[in-house]
Every structure is written in C-alpha cells, then in structure tokens.
C-alpha cells in the first residue's frame, strides 16, 4: 500500500501496487438513487385478415373426375369384302356337237368367249378415320380459399419520469437495475409469443434493454421493443419504444380445397401484439469530479 501527495496529485495504491485512488483519474460518486415502478402497455398494432379465393386447373390428385373426349382417330386398316367380279373370258368344255359331214354327234372340246360374273373375296389396306369417345380419370379442377393475417405497421413511444436529481447536479452517468414482469405477452398468429429474454430477476438496465423481438422468415426482425433509461436535464426517464413493420403471415394459412364446388370459407388466427409490462427500476445516478 502507498499513499502519496505530490505535484498536485494524491494517489493511493493497494498492497499489490495497483492504483486504488488517483486525483488525475477521478472517481465518480453516486448523487442519487432513484427507485420507481412503472407499468406500460404496448398497444395493439392492429391487424387484418386476408381471404383469397382461388380456382386451380392444376393437378389435384384428390379431385379426380371421369372425362370423355370425342376424338378423331385415323388408322391403316386391312379391309376385306366379297365383291361380284364380271368380265369376258374364254369358257371351255367338252360337248356333243352335230357333225353335218358324218351325220353324227361328236364329243368335242369347245371354247367360247363369254361375259362371266363371280363373287370374289377381296382385301386391301385402307386409311380409315373415325370420331370416337376417349375416356379416362383425370385430375380435376378445384376451388379453395386461403386466409392469412397482416399485422399493421406501427411506431409507438411513451416516456415516463422516474425521478429527478437536485437541480445543478449535472450527472454524468446512470447505472440501472430493473426487475420486470410481463403480465401479458404479445404474440403473432403464426409463431406464438414474442421472444423475450427478460427474466423476473434483477437485470442490468444500463442504457437500453431489449424487451421483445419478432423475426420474419429469413431472419430480419419485424418487431422490436426496448426500454431505455436516460438522463434528460435533471430528470431520469424511462422510454418504452415499440416499432413494427407490416407483417404478413401466411404460414397459418387455412386452405380448403373442394372439387368444383362453391368456394369454402376459411379464417386465420389474429395476432394479439399488445404486451403489458411492469418494471421496478433502481437507478444509481453518478457524477465524476470535473
């Protein structure tokens, strides 16, 4: 340990030589301790539901229908028929012919050209076309309704005075503790309660504290709430600030699909974004030697 007062400086060190006190590096003191309990309700942002009806021609395997289509079908076909075929031809045969020379009938082979007809079975390839009904089970059209929810964008700030310090003190810093209770937790319809890492125990509340957050798919925050302890002149204030941008939640979509019937009704859960907090503050107001 050492104590020295020299050259406009007073220094105290501990047994290991570390500086405990030095007038060149001022040591702050606490001018006030302010305790206060502050309740705050973050208001509803407001929301609206979407209902979108749709007609889908796309494949809906659960919605099959038996459908026939008149189709012009052409094919090569081997067509055969009995045909009566006529023509001149030599017709020959043995017959008795009277021979005037001998005066006798002579058995003679005789031919003569005759017009002859006969039924003939004829086959030929033909290109044949017909209109036919082609029928099958197909994925049919469907109608449905999708519904979701949109949280309206909102900015909100409320500021409370936790206490005041003596006029003219001009403090330099605040060290704050807080014990918070969230009696009503805001939530979004698709993800549940807003994330909050504020226990019901005593935490540091120096500067600002993140009370609640909510995130979009992909990770961007769409809702943030903070409470900040700060000095405004002679007043120690607590500012509760809320901000959310529009949030469209389709992940709680209520989809109904029916086969060609009327559009079904569907509704989505709403988001209750309001949260109610009550916080016990304990603020140490500090001031350095100039």
């Amino acid at each position: 340990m050492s104590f020295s007062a020299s050259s406009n400086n007073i220094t105290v060190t501990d047994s290991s030589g570390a500086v405990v006190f030095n007038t060149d590096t001022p040591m702050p003191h606490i001018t006030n301790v302010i305790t206060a309990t502050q309740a705050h309700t973050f208001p509803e942002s407001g929301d609206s539901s979407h209902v979108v009806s749709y007609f889908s021609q796309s494949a809906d395997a659960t919605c099959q229908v038996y459908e026939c289509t008149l189709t012009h079908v052409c094919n090569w076909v081997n067509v055969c028929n009995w045909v009566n075929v006529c023509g001149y031809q030599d017709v020959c045969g043995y017959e008795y012919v009277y021979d005037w020379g001998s005066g006798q009938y002579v058995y003679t082979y005789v031919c003569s050209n005759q017009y002859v007809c006969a039924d003939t079975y004829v086959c030929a390839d033909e290109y044949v076309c017909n209109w036919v009904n082609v029928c099958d089970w197909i994925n049919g059209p469907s109608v449905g309704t999708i519904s979701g929810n949109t949280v309206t964008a909102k900015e909100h700030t409320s500021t409370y005075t936790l206490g005041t310090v003596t006029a003219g003190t001009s403090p330099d810093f605040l060290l704050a503790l807080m014990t918070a209770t969230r009696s009503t937790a805001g939530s979004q319809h698709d993800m549940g309660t807003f994330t909050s890492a504020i226990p019901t125990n005593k935490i540091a509340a120096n500067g600002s504290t993140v009370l609640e957050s909510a995130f979009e798919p992909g990770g961007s925050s769409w809702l943030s709430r903070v409470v900040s302890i700060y000095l405004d002149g002679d007043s120690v204030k607590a500012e509760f600030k809320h901000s959310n941008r529009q949030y469209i939640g389709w992940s709680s979509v209520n989809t109904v699909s029916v086969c060609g019937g009327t559009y079904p009704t569907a509704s989505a859960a709403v988001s209750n974004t309001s949260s109610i907090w009550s916080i016990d503050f304990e603020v140490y107001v500090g001031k350095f030697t100039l």
Partner: protein
Amino acid sequence: MAHTLHADGTSGKVYIYNNASAPSIYAVPTSAQLGDLNFHSALSYLGNSVVVEATVTHPVRTRSSYETKGLFSSTTHYDPVQGTSTYNLGNNSLGANAPFVPFYGTAQVPSGTVIHQVGESVRAVSIYVTATKVKIYESWATFDQSLPAITRTYKVYLFNTLFTGSGNTSLAITGNSFTAGFGKLSSSYRYLRDSASPDFYVTDGKTADVSGGGLKVVLPDGTVQYNSANYTGTFAGITGRGVEI
C-alpha cells in the same frame, strides 16, 4: 490549482478536492460543488468491485418439423418451439442490489440481446443477479432452423454500494492500508475510475433504438454493435465515459 486532502478533527469528515479553497466551504457540499470533489466522506461511492467471468455452452435447440405426403410429393411443416434455461456464471458476494455492468462476449450490449440467430430461430440472453449468484437467462425460439450449440464467454462487473460509513476511523494510514471516510475509501477496495484505457463505459443515454421494425444498438463506447437491415431511424448513440477498476 491544487488538490487538497482535509480531515476534520471534529466531525471526522474527510474530503479531497481540486482547489486550494478553505476546507470549510466543502464541509457540506452543494450540488454545484460536487464536480470539485475527488472524494468526500459524506458522499456515496461504488467500490469493492467484483469481476465474474465464465464460459457457457448453450446446447443445441432442435426445431420441430413433420412431413405430410401427397400422391406425388411431400411437404415439410415446422412448428414453433420456445423455451428458457438458466446457467450459473459465479457467486455474488455483494447481494441482490448490486449494480453491475454485463459483457456478452466482448461487447457491453443491452440485456435481452439476441446472441445467436439462424434464419427465424433465435437465442437471446440476459445476465441477472440473485442474493448469492450471478446467472444468465436464455430464451430461445426455433422454427425453420435448429440452433446448434454455441459457446459464449460472459463477464460481469459488480459494485458494492458504499453509501454508509462504518466504524469510527476518519483517516488512517499504515504501512499496509489506507482508509478514509469511515471505510468509504480503502486501499482494500477497487473503485470506478476515469480511464483512457477503460474496462468499460458508463453513460447517461440510450444505447438502442427501434424503427421500421428494426433494431439498432450503439454501445456506450460509440460502437455500432447491431443495425438490422430494416432499421429506418437515425439513432447515432452517444459515447459514454470510459472507466476502469
């Protein structure tokens, strides 16, 4: 300008001030005189500082998912899951009312800060004190992604409130110790002191703002620690005062 150490033999008051004025004018300091005082036994101080440092492994948080199968394909669905856990960081010998400054990793970030995020799944923490322990509270939520295990180091500066003097020693200087102001200034303690190479910063202002649904965090040392893409405000933060113990 001179620094003056004065011990009043009658009242026992001890004070150190940064001028050569008569000691009597600081016997009962006014608000306007507070800036002149390096030490005054009638004032309150934060001393006997304790530092707690610990490393915590936050376990994996597995998402909840299930599949529905159609004739030609299957679809994966996710259920949001939330939970909380607490972890011990160390002992607290200063009681439940000890003001403190927490560090999350190397940053003096606000309580409730998200320290881990994968997609829409997040893990946020706050350091808190009980009468005997320093702990950390974790709140997590998973949706489309699981959160893998992570290891984080936390550091906490706790301060004893030296508001009331004890004993009857006004000023004592021995070979082993220095005490003044009935125990408020002691070579056995460590105090906050102004520093050009600070351990941390103190501030009287805000360290975060929200706008457009986004969050911006400006640490007390002036560093922009977090600025979400959709933040639409103009918050610049203020640089506090660096201190060491």
